[in-house]
């Protein structure tokens, strides 16, 4: 089984009646890297939250790493997130007042690693994002791009089945954003499965797979070097 993540007919209706996802089906294979694009309010973040078990769908099935999340209680989803899913957010969400290394090590706490191992793994992850030499710096001593790299190190430190990034370049200038994209691409080349939400068309076009959402539906799912698969109503 090569699928890391499978969405089958997933819908999400937010309280208030907004249908953010409308019967979405998606399969993500191990080692894939995909861009999720679409206009604002099209349901990208909602889909990412459902993929990452932060939110349950209103209907439909979600499978992460071979496990149907509908069958699992909240505690089990937490454990699954701790071990199999890494998140990167637009606002970094680093803790001020502790070092980069400690920020990364925190992610391994909930996977049950002992403190010494957490620290060495955190250092390794920082090395992979090219920030090994800044391990003892505090977030306020780092640039925006460096902070996002620390957040990426935190997401990959536990060696997750999939990394979910919600507009990781959204808060960065072009140069820093490109650096972060390069890093994600490198990580993917080394085997990581990555889904990135982005507004950047060029970036999306440069990735091996592009999933386009509109009004909660997938309107395009394109793999480079494969033939275009159009779903829904053609324009």
């Amino acid at each position, binding site marked *: 089984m090569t699928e890391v993540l499978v969405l089958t007919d997933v819908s999400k209706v937010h309280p208030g009646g907004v249908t953010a996802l409308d019967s979405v089906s998606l399969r993500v294979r191990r080692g894939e890297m995909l861009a999720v694009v679409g206009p604002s309010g099209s349901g990208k973040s909602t889909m990412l*939250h459902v993929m990452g078990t*932060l939110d349950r769908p209103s209907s439909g099935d979600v499978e992460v790493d071979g*496990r149907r999340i509908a069958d699992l209680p909240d*505690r089990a989803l937490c454990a699954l997130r701790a071990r199999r899913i890494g998140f990167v957010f637009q606002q970094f969400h680093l803790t001020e007042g502790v070092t980069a290394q400690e920020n990364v090590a925190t992610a391994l706490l909930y996977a049950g690693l002992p*403190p010494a191992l957490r620290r060495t793994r955190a250092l390794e992850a920082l090395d992979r994002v090219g920030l090994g030499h800044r391990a003892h710096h505090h977030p306020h001593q780092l640039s925006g791009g460096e902070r996002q790299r620390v957040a990426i190190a935190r997401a990959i430190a536990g060696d997750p089945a999939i990394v979910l990034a919600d507009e990781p370049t959204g808060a960065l200038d072009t140069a820093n954003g490109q650096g972060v994209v390069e890093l994600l691409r490198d990580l993917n080349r080394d085997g990581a499965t990555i889904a990135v939400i982005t507004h950047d068309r060029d970036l999306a076009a440069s990735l091996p797979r592009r999933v386009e959402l509109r009004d909660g539906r997938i309107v395009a799912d394109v793999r480079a070097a494969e033939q275009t698969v159009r779903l829904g109503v053609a324009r």
Partner: protein
Amino acid sequence: MSDDLTRPVRLRPLDLLRLGAGGLRTRPLRAFLSALGIAVGIATMVVVVGIPASGRLALDRELSALGVNLLLAQAKFDERTQRLPPVPEEADAMVARIGPVTAAAAVANTSASIRRTDAVPPERGSGITVLAARPGLMPVIGAGVASGEFLTETSSALPVVVLGDKAATLLGITDVSRQRPVVWINDRWFTVTGVLAPAPLAPEVERAALVGWQAAKTWLGFTGHPTTVYVRAAESQVEQVRKVLAATVFAERPSSVVVSRPSDALAAKRITDTAFSGLFLGLAGVALLVGGVGVANTMVVSVLERRREIGLRRALGSTRGQVRGQFLTESALLCLGGGLAGVLLGTLGTVGYALSRGWPADIPPAALGLGVGGALLIGVLAGLYPAVRASLLTPTEALATP
């Protein structure tokens, strides 16, 4: 389906402590101030318990030094005849013959007046009683002379007087070693030959001027009836002696003699002097309650401010229980710190007060244990509501916090 990947880990105690301490470390001033509230409450508790305990310990030591085997037989003033009953003159000699009695000595109120000089008008009396005393009184009441000497068999017939320490202060005579002053008793001069040291078990002697038995008869119109007999008995037999004392002192009318034990009276007085009322304990409780409310408030604010952190931790895989545990630990640590500081402050306060009174310091270990344990309990109670609130946040709403 429950396999290794979906079973949450238990946080190690040390990791939980580190999580709780992390929240405090980033806001040290706020943590310090809310811990201070708890510290004040606990310190008050310790002081309120420690000071009376120290006082009682000091009293116990004092009493065992003075001896608890002193008994007092006093003639009861007769309301009907307006007189003291005629206790036989040899009453103390009779008492001394009781087996377990080791010593006995009588004093008698002469109702004479004493003045510093004959120039002071009589109505401006000094508040000092003039007692006729047996020469053997001193060892019985456990007092000594501070200056000069006490009455002897020989000096008992002479116009000499020995002053109790309070009486001496009132008269302004504290030292008779170089020069013997005179005082005016009734209508003649008496030479002061001695000043007594304090006699805590016989406060009436401290306020008296003591003249010899014979001298009182000769110059002060004393009829020879004792008013008080002091008795020392073997410690194990005090109660038996107590039972027969009234009848021995005044066989004809034992009911007109009151027997008491001065150490009991002293103990009762001192304990009421040093025991704090329940009011103080109540005040300490209120201080603690206010401290607890302060901590709860701090924790509520902390949870509100850290919604994003909570969202991040949930995304990283923290369960609701682990979020709850983190905030409970933070609150408990806060109060534990306050409790330890409070116990320390309370101990210092008690020791300081005891030193200033010349007491040994005694703080019941239970008070220290309860102080720290109580602070911990308050921490858990105060942290409960904020911790539950934090754990009820869903990851998406926590992450969406602006």
